[in-house]
């Protein structure tokens, strides 16, 4: 998942932060996610939460398209409070819903872009479905931090965080225990490489 999908405002803040703080107080955190067999795992959500309570920057926005009766992207990660729009690129209508405790909502049969985006104001996993097309599935991880990334096809995710104490979290939708979270305290002083192995239920992996 490329960072280009990030909201332009978010990128500006990130840039400003980078510019404000010199290289010495910002570090690049690279996480390599694999399954237990060592196979690189894309679509893993990696985020770092500062141990010290800090005020969060304004949330970013995201869009999850419905195209060819599929949600795109499969996995999205947003900061708490982010608004996500669900533009329908198909000719058929969709009925997007979520029964997830983090965000229960439904967008009843619609075409095009719904007028109001959905605000995800609670951290957690939101599983998206379409009431008409049972096979349509998408995940949104709502996190309470601006430092998050998705692992790419090589299983690598890179977060740039200021030096400090963090808790590193890794989640993947296909984990054997779908609610399990990889959790690791991390004191970031310089660039850091971390490898994370997850217990994956391969049958749950979405082939696209």
């Amino acid at each position, binding site marked *: 998942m490329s960072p280009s999908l990030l909201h332009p405002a978010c990128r500006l803040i990130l840039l400003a932060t980078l510019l404000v703080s010199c290289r010495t107080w910002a570090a690049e955190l690279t996480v390599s996610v694999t399954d237990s067999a060592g196979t690189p795992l894309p679509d893993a959500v990696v985020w770092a939460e500062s141990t010290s309570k800090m005020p969060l920057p304004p949330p970013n926005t995201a869009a999850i398209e419905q195209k060819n009766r599929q949600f795109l992207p499969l996995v999205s990660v947003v900061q708490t409070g982010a608004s996500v729009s669900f533009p329908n690129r198909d000719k058929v209508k969709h009925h997007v819903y979520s029964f997830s405790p983090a965000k229960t909502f439904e967008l009843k049969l619609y075409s095009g872009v719904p007028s109001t985006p959905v605000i995800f104001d609670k951290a957690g996993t939101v*599983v998206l479905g379409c009431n008409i097309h049972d096979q349509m599935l998408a995940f949104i991880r709502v996190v309470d931090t601006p430092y998050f990334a998705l692992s790419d096809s090589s299983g690598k995710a890179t977060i740039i965080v200021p030096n400090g104490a963090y808790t590193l979290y890794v989640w993947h939708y296909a984990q054997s225990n779908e609610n399990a979270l990889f959790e690791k305290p991390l004191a970031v002083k310089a660039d850091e490489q971390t490898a994370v192995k997850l217990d994956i239920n391969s049958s749950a992996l979405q082939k696209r």
Partner: protein
Amino acid sequence: MQFKSLQSRMAVIFLTLILAIQVAGFLAIKYSINKNSRAAVNEQLEIGERVFLNLLKQNGDSLGQGAKILASDYGFRQAIASVDYETILSALSNHQSRIGADIAMFESSATGNLTISGKVSHLEAAPIVDKLIQDGQKNGGAQSYAIFNHQPYQLVAVPVKAPLTIGWIIMGFQIDDTLAQNLHKLSNLDVTFISRSNGSDWQSMASTLSMTLTEKLLDKASTSRLTELSMGNTDYGTRYVPIMEHGDESLVAILQRSIDEATAPYLVLQRNLLLLTLLGAVVFACVIFYVSKRISQPITELADTARKLEEGNFAIPLSSTREDELGKLSRAFGSMVDAIASREQSITRLAYWDELTGLPNRASFLRELGIALQQALDQREHLAVLVMNLNHFKQINKVLGHEAADDLLKGVAQRLQSSIRQESDLVARLGGDEFALLLPRTSIDNATHVANMLLKKLESPIRIADQAVDISMGIGIACYPDHAYSQEKLLGNAEMAMHVAKAKQSGAVLFDPAFDISSQGNLSLASELRQAIAGHELALYVQPKIDLQTGNISAVEALIRWRHPQKGLMFPDQFIPFAEQSGLISLISQWVLAEAARVEVAWRRLAIDAPIAVNLSTRDLIDQNLPNKILSLHQDAGLVLGGITLEITESSMMDDPQRAQQTLERLSDMGLQLSIDDFGTGYSSLAYLKRLPVSELKIDKSFVLKMEEDESDRKIVRSTIDLGHNLNLKVVAEGIESRAVWDLLASMGCDYGQGYHISKPMPAADFPAWLQHWQAQAAA
């Protein structure tokens, strides 16, 4: 058991055959039905199993469909999301009744909470449900069976997705009588579900069988898994379909089909077949009986016919209208019978009838005689047999030819036939020129009368080929019970008498036991005769022969008498025929010749010049040695030739004229004078007579005796005399009994004569005295 008749044997063979075929067929069909019905039952069970499994699958599918519909219901999912268990339960029970499931459950993935709609406790359901969900997680759904509260259920688990799995819906049907009945309706099989849990005994869950049969099935199925069970007098093809087998819980469906029921339609077929078989056997038996009867009856008839034929009964109708082989056989048999009959008829004719004359033959005569004898014996009647033989037939045959002789025989036969009592008498031809006459109820006197009558009838000549032929015959008469008792003997005696008659030329002769040389009496007669010859019981008699012109004695004819010690003086006709038959005649002839020679010699000494004429018999004439014997006789007696002359009867020469002529010629050459005796009674031809070396012929006394009254006899005598003279023969007349005849003969020119008027035969010793007396008379 033996079947002797063709009919029963055929019937038995064919019946046995048809029964064997029928029985074999019946058994084969029975075996086949049994095998087929079992195979059919097996097949039905197999199909039943498939139907059953299909039914289960369909049930499972419909359960799954129902569950899926519920699982995809948005409201239901919303209720799950909102953890609203009341709503979840009501949705479950609503959906349960909608699809007719017996049980519906939901387990939340998030909380693990189990909501149950149905008669199942959490405790029982939880482990089953967990296991089902475990299976279902792998395959996206699962089917299973379970026993809740001793009731088996078919269960289906379906995930509820939103869109990830948020819980599982489990729905189930109870496996009960309804299912069993459904299956029964579909497959016509009996279905029983048995189950066992926690090591308990097998129990019946549901069944289409009756309670008692179910109990029995449980008993049997608990111990073994036989594919054929006998329950309540019925055999069941049985198939076990295990439905569930995990841990100590088992569920088995038992499918059954009554073999008897499956066989039932075949049994009807089999019964019909049996009926047909029996009917066929009965029809076949009738047909076989009819056919074999049709075949064997004509054969039996033919056999009966053959038996009748054997008995000589030819009057059998044998005209079959059948066209087949038996008809041909019958007709062939019929024509054979006809052929045999006609052949037997002709054989009979040949055997019993004389072809030439149409008269019965000897065999036939003997047969009839036998019958007549039996009748005579029964009725105490008399019976006579006459045997007739034509005189001189050989000559007639020779002179006139065979055809004429045959015609003559026919003529004689006709004449005899017309002379008898048609209703009772029987004429037969015994052979050659010999005839026989059977006269039932006829005494000796009557028989003699008939014989004389016949002789008279035959006196008139018979015309053959424009020629009148004179015939005469010798007749022998034998009577029952006077002369014999058996037919052969009677006929033999009559024949014997006939021979005597012919020898004596005396017409009819009544049988005398003396004729029978073979009889006891005649055997002694023969020895007596020998005795007589040797013992001087025979006596030589002489009858003078005079010169009819001068009355001088010219010669004497030698005659013989037998001075029998007991019977007294016997005349030649009493023993000469017997002597001729027995061969003693030659001895007698010898004796007569010797005695004549002796007497002649004695007379010569007395200066009596009277040659003695000796009669020779037929037998003497065929004796080639006779001339020598006579010669030596003369020498022995010291007699010159001429002292003895010989007389031969016409008939004695006729038996073998050639030989007789030779003998006579030799005798004549020796210088012996020969005379023909009894001239006129035989049939010697003049040509033959002319050749004979005789110097004298003697006219038979039968012509002379009546010549005084009978003109024709006179003519015969006259012409005979002329004939004799013309042949240069002296003529002698026999049977002169009066002076008138003497004179008559003398006037006719007859040379010599003899007879009672001159002298009866006298002992030779008396002759010299008689001669003296005669000469004295003549002188006076």
